[in-house]
């Protein structure tokens, strides 16, 4: 489902990637851990072309990305992003839209669904995350956990093949974090390929089939440094 070859990014505001290579199978959940500033978020953003890279290639959900976004048309980007969902660490829920409007915006505008169809799809997912009663609330009226779930539903409503999650629980307290991670697992398990980035090892171990460590822009198998050196 995802195949990254020699991905390098030299000038990044946050971090640098040095020849990252990784393959992720369909339906697999992979966690990438590592210290902040190690390039985790940058890698994630490169995977759905929110940021260009300098060298290497990315194959993701049937789409191909080349350095500097070469050969990618706006139409390609739209298809890529309907196939690859993204949840930001800061969520970025649309402040002027209600929960249901946040979730149905892409189906209505990008996929050109009818309002009924879009609303039906959104309500189904909102129901599954326990937010069916909050559809008319604005983001600032929601709790942290509720907001996180809206962001996840917004990314999943287009039925992506891949879901990219940036620190999905970092803003939540322990109990809520566990609830949210449970929700994610329940919604994606086996059907959607998930790449999640976190600095929280327990979460990674709980959710992921495989844990990778990104350090200084290089991807290492999970485990401690001493194990690797041995």
């Amino acid at each position: 489902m995802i195949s990254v070859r020699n991905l390098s990014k030299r000038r990044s505001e946050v971090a640098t990637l040095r020849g990252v290579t990784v393959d992720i199978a369909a339906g697999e959940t992979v966690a990438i851990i590592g210290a902040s500033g190690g390039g985790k978020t940058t890698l994630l953003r490169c995977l759905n072309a929110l940021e260009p890279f300098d060298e290497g290639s990315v194959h993701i959900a049937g789409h191909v990305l080349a350095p500097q976004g070469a050969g990618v048309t706006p139409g390609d980007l739209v298809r890529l992003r309907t196939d690859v969902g993204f949840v930001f660490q800061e969520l970025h829920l649309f402040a002027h839209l209600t929960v249901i409007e946040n979730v149905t915006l892409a189906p209505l505008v990008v996929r050109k669904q009818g309002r009924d169809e879009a609303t039906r799809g959104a309500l189904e997912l909102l129901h599954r995350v326990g937010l069916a009663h909050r559809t008319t609330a604005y983001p600032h009226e929601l709790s942290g956990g509720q907001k996180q779930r809206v962001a996840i539903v917004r990314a999943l409503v287009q039925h992506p093949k891949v879901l990219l999650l940036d620190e999905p629980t970092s803003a939540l307290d322990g109990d809520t974090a566990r609830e949210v991670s449970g929700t994610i697992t329940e919604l994606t398990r086996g059907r959607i390929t998930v790449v999640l980035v976190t600095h929280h090892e327990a979460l990674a171990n709980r959710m992921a089939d495989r844990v990778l460590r990104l350090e200084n822009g290089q991807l290492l198998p999970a485990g401690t440094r001493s194990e690797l050196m041995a």
Partner: protein
Amino acid sequence: MLALPLVAALIAEPPASEQQGTAATTQGAAPHDRDTLDGVRARGELVWGGDIQGGEPYVFEDPADHHPIGFEVDIADALAQHLGVRARFHQADWSSLVPALERGDFDVALNGLEDTPARRDRILLSVPYFVFGETLVVRRGSKARSLEELRGERIGTLNQSYAYDTLRSRGLAPALYEGVSEPYTDLELGRVGGVLLDHVIAARYGCTRPDLECIPGDVASGTYVVGIRRGDARLKAAIDDGLSATRRSGRLRDILEKWKLWDSRQESSSHVTTVASPPSSPRSWTLADTRLFLEGASITIAISIAAFLLALPMGLALALARLDRRGTLRWLATAYVEIFRGTPLLLQLYVLYFALSPLVRLGAMSAAVLGLALNYAAYEAEVHRGALLSVPHGQAEAARSLGLGRWQTIRHVLLPQSLRIALPAMTNDFVALLKDSSLVSVITVVELTKRMTIAAVDLRGWLLPGLACAALYFTMSYPLARLAERLERRLRHDQRPEPV
């Protein structure tokens, strides 16, 4: 052709409201316990007020060295010589010559000042130094040969002129200008049906145009006189004496001949009395005034709303262009904003209405609306640009991550948020536009402020028309100001920063 007049006289000739009712025993700034004549003699100079914008042959700038020349310069010199002093010219706006005289800005007003009953009530007037006729100018081939046949059409003239009084006394609709060339330009363009002005002006600025025709015979006639403050009886006597002496000696005729102004009218000057008799006695506020003021206010609000409705989408488009990645579009939009913000609205109105008239022939109202819209678009562009930039970057990124294109992101995510941010500033700008709309009177639109300056002349007082005008502006702008306040409060409430 005159250069574009950049200075608009928004202040019409106002009566001395401070002195209302007390028959002018007290005066303005000048010391009046003694006659100005003593001051003139003591200083050794006679300061005379006029407006260089009046143009050839009255008072105008010598193209060589920019000092004032004209037949009135020569007359002033002759008068000063008679008084044994030097003459010094003082530049003043023509339509406010009388109030400037009353304020004490100069000793006498000497610049095509016509002898009218209204002026007679207000200041002292000398014996005449020139006899003029009012000449009607129409487009060549026009069927109209008299003022009566132009009833129902607007007739161009100068504000505060004798011709203006003549038109009004006959119930005709005047279009008011501040310069002598523009009425004839508008006549050529068909914006007015005819122009009524002094024969001196008509001969130089109207009859010379191939497309225009001067109707022979004076519609009315009158005289130019020197204006002197009330209370300066001795100065008036000295000026009268000087003018008579100048006439007797033949010097006046020499001067007028030098400027090609001598004609049969001048022979009879001593017998000329005012032919047209415009309403002269001060009247009081009537229901008709109220109706005219409300009409003026409705024109003000109509122009403002139309202009703002145009300025909004233009400003929005400019703001988006300024944020575009493409350099040319960004550059063009920036240039537009800087030019329209960096030059006076008044100048833009003149250019749009007069200078560009050979290319685009706009009616006065359309030019007013478009001029205000073009100017305010620049300000709205900055409001929207700021508002768009203040929407958190993550909002656009989230839209992109969902597959929204650039335009979809703007339309569905950025604009709905930025418009709310911009709303208070937009409301404030509309209030500013409402007041700036008074400037369109320079292109002959009679809106609220113009209505006020006209009424001030008829009522011989600024106070009542001024208060009525202010009250109407306030009535229109205050609810908007409150609305802006409320919007701002609501915005502070709603648009909490997106918690991380």
